C-alpha cells in the first residue's frame, strides 16, 4: 500500500512537471508580450507548438552521427530525472533517496554535455558557436550554484532536498540566518537566469546569429527531436523555478500525503511558480542582454554573494 502510494506520487510529480512546463514558458511569453503592448499568444500555444512539432517529419543532417539523434532523448531523460529528485508539491518526495542536490546539478550537467555535443555534430559554425558559449556559461555558473546550495544546506544541516524543504516548511531544526538566506537566494536566482538561458545571459526569443547560445545548438533540429529539446528546456526552467520557490519559500507545500494536503500543495505550487515566471518575464523585459564577456562579471557576483552567505551563516551563528 505504502509502496503503491509512493509510486503514485512519483507519477503524479512526473505528470505535473511534464504538463506544467509548457504553461510556464507560455506565462513568460505572455508577460513579455503584454509589457511590449502586444496581446501575445494564448497560454496554451506552447502545448500546440509541441504537438505540432511531434507530428512533423524530422529532417536530419547527413553529416551527423548517432549522437545527434540520441542527444534529445538523453537531454530529456536527464532533465526529467533531475526533476523527479526534488520535492515539488510534497516535501518528502519518494525518490529523494536516489540523489541529493549535487546529483541534481550533475544530472543537469549530463544534459548540458550532450547538448554541447549535439551542437557540434551538424558541423555548422552556428552549432559550434552555441556549444562553445554554453560551455563557458555553464562553467561559470556551477561554482556559484554549489556554494549557494551549500549555504542553504548548512541552515538545514542536510544536502538532501526533501530534508531542506521539509524543515524550512515546518520551520523546525533550522538555523535561521535571514541575511545568509537572502544572499543565497540572490545568487541562486542569477544562476537560474544563466542556466536556463534567460535574458540577460541568453535570449530564448532570438535567432539572431551573433547573440544566441541555446538556440544555436538547436538550430539543426526539427520535428520530434526539436520538440523533445524544447520540452526539456521548459522542464529545466521549471526545475530551477521549483528549486527557488521550494527551498526559499516552501510554505504551503504538503508535508504529509493526505488528499487535502496534496491538493493544497499542488495548487500553491502552481501559483508560486507561475508568480516567479511573471517576475522572470518582467526582468526579461526590463534588461538588455549582456555581451558574452560581461557574463563572467554577473556570475562572479553570484559567486561572491554565495560566499558571503556562507560567511554570514557562520558569523551569525557565532
Amino acid at each position, binding site marked *: 500500500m505504502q509502496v503503491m502510494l509512493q509510486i503514485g506520487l512519483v507519477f503524479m510529480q*512526473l505528470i505535473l512537471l511534464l504538463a506544467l512546463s509548457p504553461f510556464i514558458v507560455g506565462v513568460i511569453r505572455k508577460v513579455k508580450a503584454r509589457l511590449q503592448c502586444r496581446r501575445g499568444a494564448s497560454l496554451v500555444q506552447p502545448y500546440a507548438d509541441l504537438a505540432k512539432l511531434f507530428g512533423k517529419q*524530422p529532417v*536530419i543532417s547527413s553529416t551527423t552521427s548517432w549522437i545527434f539523434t540520441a542527444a534529445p532523448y538523453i537531454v530529456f531523460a536527464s532533465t526529467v530525472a533531475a526533476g523527479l529528485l526534488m520535492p515539488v508539491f510534497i516535501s518528502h518526495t519518494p525518490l529523494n533517496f*536516489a540523489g541529493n542536490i549535487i546529483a541534481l546539478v550533475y544530472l543537469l550537467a*549530463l544534459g548540458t554535455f550532450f547538448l554541447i555535443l549535439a551542437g557540434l555534430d551538424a558541423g*555548422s559554425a552556428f552549432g559550434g558557436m552555441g556549444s562553445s558559449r554554453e560551455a563557458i556559461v555553464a562553467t561559470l555558473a556551477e561554482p556559484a550554484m554549489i556554494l549557494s546550495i551549500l549555504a542553504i544546506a548548512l541552515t538545514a544541516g542536510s544536502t538532501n532536498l526533501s530534508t531542506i524543504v521539509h524543515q524550512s516548511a515546518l520551520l523546525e531544526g533550522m538555523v535561521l540566518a535571514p541575511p545568509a538566506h537572502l544572499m543565497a537566494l540572490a545568487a541562486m536566482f542569477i544562476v537560474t537566469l544563466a542556466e536556463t538561458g534567460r535574458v540577460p545571459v541568453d535570449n530564448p526569443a532570438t535567432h539572431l546569429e551573433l547573440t544566441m547560445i541555446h538556440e544555436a545548438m538547436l538550430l539543426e533540429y526539427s520535428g520530434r527531436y526539436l520538440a523533445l529539446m524544447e520540452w526539456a528546456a521548459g522542464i529545466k526552467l521549471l526545475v530551477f523555478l521549483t528549486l527557488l520557490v521550494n527551498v526559499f519559500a516552501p510554505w504551503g507545500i504538503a508535508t504529509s500525503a493526505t488528499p487535502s494536503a496534496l491538493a493544497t500543495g499542488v495548487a500553491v505550487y502552481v501559483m508560486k511558480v507561475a508568480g516567479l515566471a511573471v517576475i522572470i518575464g518582467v526582468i526579461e523585459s526590463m534588461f538588455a542582454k549582456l555581451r558574452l564577456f560581461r557574463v563572467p562579471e554577473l556570475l562572479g557576483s553570484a559567486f561572491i554573494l554565495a560566499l558571503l552567505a556562507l560567511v554570514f551563516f557562520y558569523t551569525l551563528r557565532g
Partner: protein
Amino acid sequence: MTTLLTVLLACYLLGGLLPLCTSRPSLQSSLAHSSAVAGSTAGIALGLGGLFAAQPLTVSIPSNIPYLTFALRLDPLAAFFVLTISLVGLAASIYAYGYVREFTGHVSVGLLGSLLNGFLLSMTLVVMADNGFFFLIVWEVMSLISYVLVVTEHERPGVREAGLFYLIMTHAGTAFIILTFLLFAQETGSFSFEAFRHPDQRLPEGLRSIAFFTALIGFGAKAGLVPLHVWLPYAHPAAPSHISALMSGVMIKTAIYGLIRVYFDFFEGQFLWWWGFTVLSVGAFSALLGVMYALMEHDLKSLLAFSSVENVGIILLGIGAGMIFHTYGLDELAALGLLAGLYHTINHAAFKALLFLGAGSLLFATHTRNIEQYGGLLRRMPWTGLCFLIGAVSIAALPPTSGFVSEWLIFQSLFLSVQLPTLFLKLMLPIVAAILALTGALAVACFAKAFGLSFLAQPRSPQARHAVEVPVSMRIGMGFLAASCALLGLAPMLVVPLLDRVTAPFTGVTISDKVLAFDGWVVAPVTVEFSSISMPVLAALLVGAGGLGLAIARLLGKGAPARYSRTWGCGLPLTPRMEYTATAFVQPIKQVFETIYQPTVKLEREFLEQSKYFIRHQRFHSHIEPLFEKYVYQPVVTGLLAAAERLRVIQAGSLHLYLTYIFLTLVLLLLWAG
C-alpha cells in the same frame, strides 16, 4: 596466495625474457603480451585475495647487503593498488597485441613487450615492498623502465627532451623520498617498514614536519602535483599509447600509494592540522590548473596528461580532507575522505587508461594526435568512439558513471566540514568544494571538446577521412575498461566494502555499513539524513525517462521516418572549414581566464600589391604562456647552467690536476676523520 604471487612473478619474468629469445615480431608480441595477460590476471586475483585476507601476506628473503631485505607485504592498501595496477595492466596488454603492429619495423617489438612486463612487475613490487631500501630499488627500476619506454620513438622530435626532463624530475623526486626514509631510518636504525610503523620512539615534531614535506615533494613529483607537474604533459604522451595508459592510469598512483603509506601508516595518523590543509590546497591547486591547461591543449594525449594532473589533485582533496578530519578525531569522516580518494584512484585508473587507449586508437588510425586534424571519426570508428564517449562521460563526473560517485563522495566529505571545530577550516573547505565544482564544470567542457571535435561533424583532414576501425584486440582492451567504468559507477555496493577494508586499519573504524544504506542500494556518507545517492536507481530513472521520451515521440509523431539532408550552410555547400575548431571552441574560456593563460596572438598579413583590401597570405599564431616553466623552472635552469659555467674553471682536462684534487680530498678527509 603465495602460489598466486609466484605465478605473477613467474609470468612477468618469463614475459620479460622470452620475447628476447626469438626474432620474429609476431611471436615476440604473442609471447610478451600473453605473459603480461597471465601475470595481470594473477595480479587481479592476488589483489582481491589480499583485500579479503584476514592476515597480510608477508614474504621476506634476507640479503647480504646491510639494511636490505627483499621483504614483501600484501596488506589491504597494497592489495588495492595491486588490483588497480593489474586491472589496467590486463587491458593494456590485450590492447598491445594489435597496437604494437604499428611499431613493427622501426622499434623492436620484443624489447617493447619485455619492458612492458618489467614495468608491470616493478609497479606491483613497489606497492608490495616492505623495506625502504627494497622499495627504493624497485621504485628506481620502475622509473628507469618507464623512461626507456618514454623514449621508445626517440627519433621523433621532442621525445628525447621529454625523456630527459622526466628523468631529471623523477630523480629529484626520488632524492626527496630517500631523504624521507633516511629520517625514519635515523630514528629506528632500520630500513624495514615494520620498524617505521612501530618506532621505539617517535620523531621529534620538527623532523616529522620535514618528513611530511619531503614525502609530499618526493611523491608529488611522480604524481604530477602542481608545480612539480611540468614533465608529465611531455613524458606521458611521448610513450606508446598503451604505456601512456599505464603511466597516467597507474604509475602516478604509486605516488598516491606512497603518500598514504607514509602519512597514515608510518605517521600513524598523527598529524598537525596544517598538514591536511596543505595537502588539500595542493590538491585544489593541481585540480584547477590541471584542467585549465588540459582545456587549451589540442594534442589529444597531452590533453589527457594534463587531465591526470587534475585528477591526482581531486584524489588529494579526498585524502587531504581525510587527514584534516583525522587530526580532529572525526574518525568516520576521515575514513570517508580517504575512501573517496581511493575510489577516485581506481576510477581514474580505469577511465584515464581507457581514454589513452582510445587516443592510441585514433593515433593508430590517423597517425596524428592533433584534435584539429580529426573530426567525423564516430561514423568511421564506432567502437572506439563509444568507448571514448564512456570514458569522457566518466571523467567529466557525470551520472550514472564511475567518476560521479567518487567526486560526489569527495563533495560530501568537504561539505561535512560543518563538524570541524575551527572557523577557518569551516570556511576553507566549502571554498575548496567550489573550486572542485569549477574543476568539474571545466572538465565537462574539456571532454565535450575532446570527444565532440574528434568524433563529430565532418573530417578535417585526409587522414581522418580515410580512418578505419582498429583491430579486435584493441577494441577488447578498451571494451574491458569501459565495462569496468560502468561497473564501478553502477555498483558502489561492491566497491565500498573493499575500500573500507583498506581504510579501516588507518582510521580504526569501518564505515561500510553506514555508507551503504538500504542493503547497499543507497550510498550515504555517514548518515542518510545528510545526503544520499542511489546509482542503480539514478541509472534506471535515466533509462525510464529516456524510454518515456521515446514513447511520447512514437505516440505523437506516429513514427514518421526522418528525412536526411545537408546541414544549411547559409547557401554555400558545407565544408569542414566552416566547422568550429578546437581553438575556436575554447576561445571564450581562454579570454575569461586570461590572467592565468596569458595568451598572446600574432597575426601576420601579406596584402596584394594592388590593394591592401585583399589579403594574399595570413598567418595566425596563438600561444599560451606556461607559467611554471617560465617563472619557476627557467630561472633554475639558467642558474644551474651559469653555475656550471663557472665551475668549468676547475675542469682543466689535465690528469695531473685531477690527481692533485684526489690527493687534496684524501688529506682533507683524513684531517676530518682524525
